[in-house]
């Protein structure tokens, strides 16, 4: 596998630190249309990931992703635990089956997004993290080989977050609010965007 342990560690560290730094913002978004625990839950989960950073860095990439996923499942405490956990565990599973990064990025990402969709029984357009993950998957497909791919991913993710504002939630806690969920950024979409930006920024800096 072509991802070096130091790259893996720096990406995981940056992603975790960014989510932790954004916890107050995520909580504020979730207080508007959810139960206000998304920031605290993500912070707890990614602090646990940071605590295992050395172990994660010492693992092959597929096992490292599974460790991240399991750690989130066991520590987040809200629906985002199984959802993000499933993303990383499914990506790890895909890599275990003779896939490698970055060559098989589209397929690995597709498997991970598909697993999240199945876990949440949710599709695009329902005001969830999938409304960032699906558009990013499309960008990964469309821009494969583009030297500016990382920038394309960032732009796609940021724009996708904005597009959740007029959406009405039909899944998750926000679904109880019905039409009142319209007019707010979805917290899960925002946390996905934060993670993707951190990953892209770190990979770019190491290029």
């Amino acid at each position: 596998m072509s991802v070096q342990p130091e790259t893996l560690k720096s990406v995981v560290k940056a992603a975790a630190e960014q989510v932790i730094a954004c916890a107050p913002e995520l909580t504020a978004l979730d207080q508007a249309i959810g139960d206000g625990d998304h920031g605290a839950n993500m912070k707890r989960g990614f602090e646990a990931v940071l605590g295992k950073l050395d172990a994660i860095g010492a693992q092959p990439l597929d096992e490292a992703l599974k460790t991240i996923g399991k750690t989130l499942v066991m520590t987040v405490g809200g629906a985002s635990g199984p959802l993000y956990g499933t993303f990383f565990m499914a990506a790890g599973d895909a890599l275990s089956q003779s896939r490698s990064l970055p060559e098989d990025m589209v397929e690995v990402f597709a498997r991970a997004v598909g697993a999240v969709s199945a876990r949440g029984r949710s599709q695009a357009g329902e005001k969830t993290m999938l409304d960032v993950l699906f558009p990013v998957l499309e960008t990964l497909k469309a821009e494969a080989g583009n030297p500016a791919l990382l920038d394309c991913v960032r732009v796609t993710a940021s724009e996708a977050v904005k597009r959740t504002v007029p959406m009405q939630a039909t899944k998750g806690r926000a679904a109880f609010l019905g039409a009142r969920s319209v007019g707010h950024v979805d917290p899960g979409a925002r946390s996905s965007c934060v993670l993707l930006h951190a990953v892209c920024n770190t990979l770019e800096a190491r290029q």
Partner: protein
Amino acid sequence: MNETVGIVIVSHSKDIAKGTADMVRQMVGSEVKVAFCGGNPDGGLGTSVSLIIDAINNAWSPKGVVILVDLGGAETNSEMAVEMLQPEQRNLVVVCNAPIVEGAVMAATEAAGGSSLDEVRAVAEELSAG
């Protein structure tokens, strides 16, 4: 002793989970194994996959276990907990689509009569069908 289907109650609040379990025990006695959990891994409102796995094991019966949940994250975390069980346990645990308090009481009443996992689940889920 005749085995009965076990009941697990998963709420975001430990108080709600415990209160529901107390009601079940008062109404159907101690012949049905009832376990409960609530709270996130820090003890705040939320649910914890590892606590749910513990509760499933505490209520374990060879006839299976039904789980009653309150809101979204409790359901997702319960489904995750079931997937993380040993394969031979996994097929004997179901998450019911039913209101937590009424579902737990109805499921426990049905289980006390020696009903199967499918029968217990069906009785709890009838509450949502109406």
